[in-house]
């Protein structure tokens, strides 16, 4: 293990489900303090890739390296022990429960011994507030039910939780897809914060406008294949959008959807042509 080896790297991994090539020769890497974005439309193979990175599946072919050393995860627990934490779309939070109860769910701090071992509620509340404040999240009241939080706040709590439990690398599965513009902004700010804290982030999304501002590297997937692996200097936002949407396809689509403005001679001319 060397200091400058990436936190996580996969080299030419492939995954087959029967005769279906779910992923073909995908390579990506993420360094500490960097954000690698994985972009792709529905069915591009993003979900399969996440499942491999988080230890749910093993790749059929290819190398999987953590800190420069090859590893083979057999369960999500292996990945978590290696400091790789996945924040899923469904967030693994219980809406009816308070923030502090959710924060420590499944890993509750305890005090006392024997039959009097109990949930250290004071510690849980204090730690929750502290961790959320460290991320700059103002949850007016940790007793508030998670269900009453906005989508962006919920994602923020989930990210703060992953960081608290020792994550060095966050895998965020479409964290902005169900959110409005403002809420998506909140989540993007969290991603930037995690990056500043020295964590590696793999940000999976189908929205290049969300990916471009925070991303350092971009991997674009299409039908299980990589369309390229770019650093930010190598690609402009426009190119990313075009690549993502399949270039020519989008242009054809916009042409099809465009409507001639009334009294527009150019449009009329085009229509008559």
């Amino acid at each position, binding site marked *: 293990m060397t200091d400058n080896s990436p936190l996580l790297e996969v080299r030419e991994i492939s995954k087959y489900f029967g005769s279906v090539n779910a992923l073909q020769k995908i390579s990506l890497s993420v360094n500490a303090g960097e954000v690698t974005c994985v972009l792709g439309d529905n069915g591009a193979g993003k979900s399969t890739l996440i499942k491999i990175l988080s230890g749910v599946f093993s790749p059929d072919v290819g190398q999987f390296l953590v800190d420069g050393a090859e590893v083979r995860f057999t369960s999500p627990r292996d990945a978590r022990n290696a400091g790789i934490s996945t924040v899923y779309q469904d967030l693994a939070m*219980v809406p009816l429960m308070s923030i502090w*109860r959710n924060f420590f769910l499944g890993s509750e701090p305890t005090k006392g011994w024997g039959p009097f*071992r*109990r*949930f250290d509620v004071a510690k849980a509340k204090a730690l929750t507030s502290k961790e959320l404040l460290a991320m700059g999240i103002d949850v007016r009241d940790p007793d508030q039910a998670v269900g009453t939080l906005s989508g962006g706040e919920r994602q923020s709590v989930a990210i703060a939780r992953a960081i608290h439990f020792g994550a060095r690398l966050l895998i965020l599965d479409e964290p902005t897809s169900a959110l409005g513009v403002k809420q998506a902004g909140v989540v993007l700010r969290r991603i930037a914060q995690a990056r500043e804290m020295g964590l590696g982030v793999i940000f999976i999304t189908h929205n290049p406008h969300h990916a471009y501002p925070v991303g350092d590297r971009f991997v674009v997937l299409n039908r299980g294949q990589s369309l390229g692996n770019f650093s930010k200097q190598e690609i402009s936002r426009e190119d990313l959008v075009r690549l993502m949407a399949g270039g020519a396809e989008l242009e054809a689509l916009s042409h099809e959807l465009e409507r001639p403005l009334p009294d527009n001679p150019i449009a009329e001319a085009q229509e008559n042509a």
Partner: protein
Amino acid sequence: MSTPSLPVDDERLTSTGWLTRTLRRPALGSLVGAIVVFVLFAITDSTSKHLWLSSTGFAAWSQQAAFFGIMAVPVGMLMIGGEFDLSTGGMTGFTAIITALLVGQLGWNAWAAIVVTVLFAALIGFINGYVVTRSRLPSFIVTLATYFALRGLSIGGVLLVNHGSTEIGVGTGTHPGLDSAKAIFGSSFLKSPDLPNGFQTAILWFVVVTIIAVWVLGRTTFGNWVFAVGGDLDAARNVGVPVNRTKIALFMSTSIAASLVGIISFTQSSNAVSEQGVGYEFYYIIAAVVGGCLLTGGYGSVVGAALGACIIGMAFQGVIYSGWDSSWDFTFLGIILFLAVGTNTVIYRRAMKARR
């Protein structure tokens, strides 16, 4: 300020004011309900000595409440955990019969009989929980099956071993340990000239069960898991909560509580009747729902369930003291249930509303 700042402290204060905090308590509806019902029967009380407000009245309704409450509290916890147990009423009768058989017919030491009864109840609870978690069938169906199986066993089994009688007593003669068991489970305390029969020990058990449940639910890791498995099973599983173990433990707690009720009723009267407890499972569920436990799980309060049991106890006794026909109990309970669910839903929606 250069960075967009979050709302100022003022908003923070108003959003967690005492009113919101109070409304967020799921037990609030049942507390208000209990006070209303208490005052109502104080007004309608038609006994010559105004017994409702005397210690006699208090002892009368609280002992009924105790029998409902010892069950309503674990049943409420199970509902918070997202499951139902319809076998509870039948279990109270069945466990009383087991103890009665062991003591009365087989001549066991009463304490040994009690231990075996509790272990047996734990086993039934384990089976309920195991079948529910493994088969993924609704607990409603699984425990309904248990209920019918137990009920058949209670009636048929007792008729078989008891030569045609549905009642099992201890008969005459000495029964080792029965007196001490009676002192712990089936006696009374605080006897006075005004109240020659005192308060039943069952009331103390009710208090003990409630305190344990409050502590477990609010202050232990297990309690956190109970809310989680009822609130969102997949999320709970994803973060590593042992969901099956949690549910099985909940089913075992309702069964063990049922055996406690069975043991108390047996030691009180020194006999057991096979039809005992049949139909009571609905009172337990009513008490829990009145207490703010959501039918869909994930939310509720054991204090609320205990207060719900008090409301039911008061209803049964209050109807008698008011000189009404006791058939009105059911109508009264129906109305209470309806009002409570309505109130709780309003409170719940208010508490869950995003305050932004």
